[in-house]
């Protein structure tokens, strides 16, 4: 076996994560391999510096607000959902009413009626298309949910 085969065991040895048998195997290789001993020393120095790096803890105030910030997201999600559903319903209702008014209005000429109806139909198609596209990409967003 070459030194490459012992690389992984070297990490386990460094982090004290080896079984007794693995430790024995690695130590017997280490005893006869100055290259791995040198490499292990380098990793020991690196580990010692890295272990010394401690991050500054945020102030207690931020931890106290932490749950509140998450809870606000639940509330906002509910608010936006209700807002979205009611806006869509109102738009549909308003659209039908407008179409009814345009058709029934004797003062509007046929050309104008067709133009207005085409405008409303175009807006409706655009809206449906946008919503469908959004739902399509949302369902394929690999980072949205993680299923396990």
């Amino acid at each position, binding site marked *: 076996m070459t030194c490459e085969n012992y690389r*992984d065991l070297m990490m*386990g040895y460094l*982090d004290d*994560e080896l079984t007794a048998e693995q430790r024995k195997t690695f130590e017997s290789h280490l005893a006869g391999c100055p290259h791995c001993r040198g490499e292990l020393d380098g990793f020991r120095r690196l580990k010692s510096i890295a272990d010394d790096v*401690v*991050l500054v*803890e945020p102030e207690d105030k931020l*931890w106290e607000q932490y749950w509140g910030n998450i*809870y606000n*997201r639940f509330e906002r999600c509910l608010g936006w959902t209700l807002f979205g559903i009611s806006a869509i319903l109102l738009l549909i209702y308003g659209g039908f009413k407008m179409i009814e008014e345009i058709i029934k209005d004797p003062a509007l000429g046929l050309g104008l009626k067709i133009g207005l109806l085409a405008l409303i139909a175009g807006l409706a198609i655009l809206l449906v298309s946008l919503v469908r596209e959004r739902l399509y990409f949302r369902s394929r967003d690999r980072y949205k949910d993680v299923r396990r």
Partner: protein
Amino acid sequence: MRTCTIQDEGQLLQECRRGSHDAFEVLVNRHMKDAYRIAVGLVGCREDAMELSQEAFYRSFKNIGLLKPEARFFPWFYQILRNLCFSHLRKQRFRRTSSLPQVDGEELTAADGDGFDPHLVAERSEAKDQVWKAIGRLPAKHREVIILRHFRDMSYEQMSEALFCSTGTVMSRLYHARQKLKEILENPKGGHVV
């Protein structure tokens, strides 16, 4: 506000599946510091780490039904958190290089390491600042194992659970991550280590 007195994780998850925010609050309080520390290690910025860890908790509650009944919460939550952090780094890089063509196989580092704010390091010294910045220059999958091992003190078994891989793979990734970290520290002015 009602307070949840349940402490057992299985029971808490069961309550969360029924929509209990109180039970979820207990889980959040239990894991928020670890979530923040991991996020700050992955993105290198305190504000972003706070925001991303909170968003990960929010999404995990929304999708708690996807967690298998016998599964533990944190490894599953960790997947959501890391994906959010990596996605955030991708967006950041896209904003920085929006007009440049994407290089195939280019690995995800955190803002060339300069995005890793040295003020986040306690009891600062030149050596510690250098290590922190060097961690920021590691490719994401290598930075991840360094963060889990050194900043969250996870065992290899816990790491393998969180990373969906064997302990052998964890050791291998740690070897390469530490090797690259050494290379960056020995050659701090060098370009990206990929």
